[in-house]
C-alpha cells in the first residue's frame, strides 16, 4: 500500500508526537508499505486564498506556488492517508487545517446531491480513505472526540471517502495504527 502521513505537529524540534510518527513510518516500512510523510510546519505552505483559480482558471491546478504540489500528488495517488496532529484548543492544528483547505483543488466545482445534501462532484476517479491520529490535550473529553469524529466524517462525505478510525497516540501503539490503516 501507499500511505501518506500529514503530520500537523506545530513543534518543529524534537517532540514525542513526531517521534511517534517516525516510529510509525518504520513500522509501515517493515511491513513493505511505501510511506510519504510530511511534517507540515517544516514546509513552505501558504493557506488557501479562496481564489478558485483551481476551479475556473486552471482546472485542477493550485496557483499558489509552494510545497503543496508534492502533497496533492502524494494524497490523490495514495491508498490511505493519515491526518496526524496533536490537538490544540480542541482540534487538529492550524498547519493541518491549512493544507486540508487546499485539498479542494482535488474536487470539481460542480455540485451534486449526495446524502440528501449538496456536495462537490469528483475530479479524480478514486479518493483515499483516511484515519485520524491525534494526541489528546490534558483537558480533552468525550465531547471533543465527538466533535472531531463528526467534523472528519463530514470531510469524508465531501472528499468521497471514508474515515476508518480516530485513534490517539496516548492510547494506541504504532503497530495498532499500522493494522488499522491496512486492515490487517
Amino acid at each position: 500500500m501507499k500511505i501518506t502521513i500529514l503530520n500537523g505537529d506545530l513543534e518543529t524540534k524534537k517532540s514525542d508526537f513526531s517521534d511517534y510518527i517516525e516510529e510509525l513510518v518504520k513500522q509501515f516500512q517493515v511491513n513493505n508499505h511505501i510511506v510519504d510523510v510530511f511534517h507540515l510546519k517544516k514546509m513552505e505552505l501558504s493557506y488557501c486564498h479562496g481564489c478558485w483559480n483551481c476551479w475556473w482558471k486552471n482546472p485542477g491546478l493550485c496557483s499558489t506556488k509552494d510545497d503543496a504540489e508534492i502533497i496533492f500528488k502524494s494524497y490523490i495517488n495514495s491508498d490511505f492517508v493519515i491526518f496526524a496532529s496533536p490537538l490544540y484548543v480542541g482540534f487538529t492544528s492550524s498547519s493541518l487545517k491549512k493544507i486540508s483547505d487546499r485539498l479542494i483543488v482535488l474536487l470539481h466545482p460542480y455540485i451534486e446531491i449526495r446524502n440528501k445534501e449538496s456536495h462537490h462532484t469528483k475530479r479524480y476517479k478514486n479518493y483515499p480513505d483516511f484515519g485520524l491520529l491525534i494526541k489528546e490535550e490534558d483537558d480533552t473529553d468525550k465531547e471533543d472526540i465527538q466533535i472531531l469524529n463528526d467534523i472528519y466524517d463530514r470531510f469524508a462525505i465531501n472528499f468521497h471517502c471514508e474515515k476508518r478510525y480516530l485513534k490517539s497516540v496516548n492510547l494506541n501503539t504504532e503497530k495498532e495504527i499500522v493494522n488499522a490503516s491496512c486492515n490487517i
Partner: protein
Amino acid sequence: MQVVIFNGSPRRKISNTKLLINSFLLGYKKATDTKVPVYYIASFNKKEEMLNAYKNAKVVIIFFPLYTDMMPGIVKEFFEDISKFKNYERKKIGFVVQSGFPEAYQSIFVEKYLEKLAKRLKLNYVGTVIKGGVEGIKIMPAWMTKELFANFTDLGEYFAKNNEFDDKINRKLRKPYRMSKIKRILFSIFSKTGLTNFYWNGNLKRNKAYEKRYNRPYAQK
C-alpha cells in the same frame, strides 16, 4: 473599545464575508455612534495589532466562511494564538459562519466546536449565526440579496442594543436548514440540463478553461 469584529475570510476585502459585515455594521450604526473596528485575520502583518484589539475588546464577533467543514486554517491559527492569553475570561464572543452550500446544516458541526471553544477559553458565548448560500452574492442582482442584507442589518441593530444575536433573525437566516425533497428533485432535473452548472461554466468559458474542466493534473496512475 467595546466591540471588535474579525473577518476570517482569506479573501479579506473582496470577500462575501465583508459584505455581510457591512450590512451588520449598517444596522449597528442605527443604534449607536460607537465605532466598531474590523480586522482581517489574513492580514498577518497586523497580527500584533489584531491580538491587542482582541485583548482590549469586551465583545468579539468573528465572521468566517466554512472551509472544508470547519473554520479556515488561518482562523484556527487565530484561535491557537488567543488561547495563549490568560485572564481574559469575561469577554463575550460570538460567531457568524457563512457557506457557499445552501443548507445551514453543513455548518452546525463547526458550531458545536465554537461553543466548546468559548467554554474552553472561559469566554461568555453569545451564539453562532449560520447562513448558507452566500457564494455569488457579489454578482447577484439587488433583488436577490435584498432580504439577506436586510436581515444582517437587523441583526447588527439588535446586537448594538443587546450585545447578543437575535434568535428570531438567526432562525430565519438558517433557512433552508436542509434541502427539501422537492428542491432535491428539481436540482437533479436541472443538473441534467446543465442549468445547475451555469455559474461555473460561465466562469470557465470566460477564462478559456471550459475544455480543461475535467483535468486531473496530479494523477499518476
